[in-house]
């Protein structure tokens, strides 16, 4: 299976990938050190890392022979936008309610 690009929600839907993000929220880690924390093969871990990378959740830097993974904000921004959407939604609705009630008062 080739590494497809998933949206932010699909990315965090996977428990292993969430676990990886949590590990990385404590410290940046090499792929090898990530592998030690999972009961799966290195290629399997690499595949998840690639998914996280493609969706902008992490950046990867090669230092010597090691690949270092660090959290990145882009992926999380998409999740934040979801919350922002509702923020605007309610503000609009509440303003509408206020207009209705204010107009009622004038009558």
């Amino acid at each position: 299976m080739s590494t497809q690009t998933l949206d932010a929600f699909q990315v965090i839907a996977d428990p292993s990938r969430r676990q990886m993000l949590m590990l990385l929220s404590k410290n940046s880690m090499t792929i090898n050190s990530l592998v030690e924390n999972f009961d799966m093969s290195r290629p399997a871990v690499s595949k998840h890392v690639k998914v996280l990378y493609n969706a902008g959740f992490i950046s990867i830097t090669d230092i010597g022979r090691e690949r270092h993974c660090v959290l990145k904000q882009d992926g999380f921004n998409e999740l934040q936008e979801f919350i922002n959407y509702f923020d605007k939604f309610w503000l609009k609705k509440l303003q509408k309610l206020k207009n209705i009630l204010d107009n009622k008062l004038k009558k």
Partner: protein
Amino acid sequence: MQKEIKHTFYFTQTPEEIWDYLTKPELMEQWLMPSDFQPVVGHHFRFTNPNNTFVVCEVLEVKPFTNLAYVWKNDWAVTKTPYTSKVSWTLTAIEGGTELLLVHSGFELFKDLVAHNSGWVFLCNKLGELLKVPKK
């Protein structure tokens, strides 16, 4: 990362008048959406979005003229990205009217995340600290 939405609005009307607009479908429809809401705890109802999709809800709390809360989730039968959350309304009589507080919270993305909520909260908190996401 911001995890809940809060808005406070002030009205010159009484809590009783505002309550009607939060609980009577014919009045709710005027500013929110059409629904088959009933102010009964445990009542399942749906809001109909303008594009004919549904917000699937269940009443959690009804304290007349004071508190109202319901589950707010999208239609898991048709969506690829299910989420669930909670909408709660608090009305407080103040001098010259009513303070209305809306809190939309408990955003849990994906059914899977419902079972892993503590993890999600932990992650969000950690990230908030780490990334210091600037509020737009």
